[in-house]
């Protein structure tokens, strides 16, 4: 049985993306990330999608600035390969994580896509130490062949412009 079946498959729907549908998608993504089912996570993306963790707030065009990460499809794939390789000491083992996403707001949308903002708390634990990463996440979701896909995910950590630490998992 695949993990997706364990978690519950996305239900194919049509029409305008509702807040409820977007929230369910983001919860499902959060569970995939906590379980480190990264291959399935990759399948949630459009090929042209961008995964971004900026450093500065209101920095405008992310491509013209330095980010914590700025991943296109190739980099996402390489990142997943690295995290699951067993040869990266920061991710073998990685910290365990439990994350919650809430405070969903639809900030823009049309018939084919929607932008959702939400709060994200990640609690991580490794080697006797528990730490928290909190941030605002912004998703651009589109419907393709009845399924929602990520066109863009940006996580702005509340302390992204301060000192962080080595993060051996996906946020």
């Amino acid at each position, binding site marked *: 049985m695949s993990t997706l079946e364990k978690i519950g498959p996305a239900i194919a729907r049509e029409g305008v993306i509702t807040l409820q549908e977007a929230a369910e998608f983001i919860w499902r993504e959060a569970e995939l990330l906590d379980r480190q089912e990264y291959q399935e996570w990759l399948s949630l993306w459009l090929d042209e999608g961008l995964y971004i963790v900026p450093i500065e707030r209101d920095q405008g065009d992310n491509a013209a600035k330095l980010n914590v990460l700025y991943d296109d499809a190739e980099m996402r794939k390489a990142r997943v390969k690295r995290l699951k390789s067993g040869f990266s000491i*920061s991710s073998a083992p990685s910290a365990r994580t439990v994350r919650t996403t809430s405070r969903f707001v639809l900030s823009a949308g049309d018939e084919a896509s929607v932008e959702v903002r939400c709060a994200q708390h990640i609690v991580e634990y490794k080697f006797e130490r528990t730490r928290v990463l909190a941030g605002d996440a912004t998703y651009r979701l589109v419907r393709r062949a009845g399924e929602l896909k990520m066109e863009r995910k940006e996580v702005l950590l509340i302390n992204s412009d301060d000192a962080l630490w080595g993060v051996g998992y996906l946020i």
Partner: protein
Amino acid sequence: MDIKVRELRDVSDLVQPDRFDTSLYTDPEIFDAEMDRIFKGTWVWVAHASEVPNKGHFVKSFVGKEPVIVVRDKTGQVNVLLNRCRHRAASVCEQKRGKTSVFVCPYHGWSYALDGKLRAVPHASVYGDDFNKADFPLVSLRVEEYAGMIFATFRADIEPLVDFLGPAKKWIDLFMKQGAGHPVKTLGEHRFRFSGNWKIQLENTTDAYHFPIVHKTFLDSLDADTSNVFDVLGQGGWVEDLGKGHSVMVMIPALVDLEENLEDEIPERFRELADELRSEGYEEGEVRKVVRAVGGSGFNLNLFPNVACSMAFFRVLRPISVDETEIRHIAIGMDGGPEAGNRVRMRLHEHFQGPMGFGSPDDAEGWERVQRGAAAGEDVHVLVNRGIDPLIGHVAGSNVTDVSAETGMRAAYAQWKRMMSA
């Protein structure tokens, strides 16, 4: 300025030429003494000139544990001021960087000019006639600059910066060729902390030995050509002690001088950039210069005690406590060169560096493992005895050791011993 140096037992026997005592990582008393004798006793890197390009620009930094403001005043001079009001000690600046004409203490409103002079004190009459504003400027450190690298020191009596850098200057000059004919500017930075002693990070910048092990997953993420470029142990590189705790580790000899070999074939990973530059109208010579500089230099220059010119970025360490250290990986690029080149530099920087890079988290994990392991075996030494004998007949001279030798660490610990025993 008088520097109060705390009493410390004799630590000179803790460092031997090829090993040192574990207490250098774990003893808080030694850490406190390091802050006095090393970080308040020598030149400490505080900023790059491009972070304060114009009059009024400032950036916060640290000298050891002490917070400072690096600011360019209205005469264009760079001042390094302790971030502490002379009245009741409140910090006068809590903005990371910016532009201002004055620093005003938020507590009682004392205001300071950009050279540190106390300009105004609210309700000054209560102080009486003998109160003289000239007696209470922000404390100002001695500042000198080489090739855009700004250093500060608490000490008036130590050598000029250029003498402190000595043979390292040649390597700084080579490193700055990454501007491809333009001045170098900073492009942003990654900051992260690890639970370990600052010297573990200092060692790492001159440690090629760990690279293929710790960074296997980074190497695996590269195309075959680039992976060969980063085969740092297999290209005849070397490490050289440059004196005063400084050292250089050359990992990619072909990339020591970025103005040479411009006619070489453009590596595949930079062909898209080369095409983009050509389409923007850049001449072929300029395209090749930019493309060759974009990937960074083939060496790490480690400057004791807190900064490195590391391949394509500045690596700055800040000791926080005996077992906590903050690292900044400052991206650099061309000031005035093609923006496309700087974009590629930032994507390359993100690939390896920072809290979620393909390299830094594994480095940080390794360093934390050193600190955790150092809790065991108080009487077991830490070894830095790898590659002591110079290489015979090496092109770089008679005084260089294998690229994976621990020569740079021995250089740093010899300087540590000199400064801590003085």
